[in-house]
């Protein structure tokens, strides 16, 4: 495997989405190529940074309540609310 081929696989490898044979060839290349190893580490960091830095907000309580109500209506009321939609 050359660097160009390996480069395309980096992203999927970070996600654990390579096929077994792809992964074997890819890891073999990494063991021989420090440049691609660096790229791979950077790709892992980029994924981590998205996970860490994109803030997940809590749903507003009013929304939470109305969703909960959805599942505690009696059947008739529920049907009505669907029709209303």
């Amino acid at each position: 495997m050359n660097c160009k081929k390996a480069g395309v696989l980096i992203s999927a490898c970070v996600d654990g989405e390579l096929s077994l044979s792809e992964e074997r060839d890819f890891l073999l290349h990494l063991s021989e190529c420090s440049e691609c190893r660096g790229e791979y580490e950077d790709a892992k960091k980029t994924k981590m940074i998205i996970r860490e830095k994109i803030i997940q907000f809590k749903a507003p309580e009013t929304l939470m309540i109305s969703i909960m109500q959805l599942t505690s209506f009696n059947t008739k009321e529920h049907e009505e609310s669907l029709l209303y939609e």
Partner: protein
Amino acid sequence: MDKPDPTRQAKTRTIKESLSREERQKQLEFQREAVVHLNALYNYSLHLTMNPSDAEDLVQETYLKAYRFFNSFERGTNCKAWLFKILKNNYINRFRKNSKEPGKVDYDLIKDFYHSIKDTRNDTSETDSDYFHSLLHEEVYQALHSLPEEFREVIQLCDIEGFTYEEIANMVESPIGTVRSRLYRGRKLLRAQLEEYAKKYGFNNDNDNDQ
């Protein structure tokens, strides 16, 4: 005063009894399987609409539809993925098909969201010299949103929500190979953008301790 009101109790009982056993079972299962993903759905919705009130409407609609069609949810598969797909379809029907513009993109509000959270710049155990860790929440958010939607979407679904390629492919109705190459290309763009921010950050903050 704390005495239970007998009429009220009776009323509650009638309502409860009017539910069929299956319906109650369905409700419990729905809460366990679907309602637990409320926060994730809300955030996805917020990312799509960029507007909190549209985001809430979309989530409401999604849960109504999901509850109605809960029987068609294939048990044992990823319920979160199923809900995300419903939400995405709703979003398309609502805003795209009718070529109706979503509510005004509220950048200020998003900014406020981000400002309301104290940035923890030194909260990781990674090496200090790493430029990634100097990035602010807001910058990463902006970098993500600077990407074309088809790239942003897959990165979000993969990195933030943790869906598999197969689940994403199903959600965005494209082959797995397409998902894979969009992630590859999107991440390249994203990294370039992040490096840009990091450079600017380093340049503008000479006085910060460089630990």
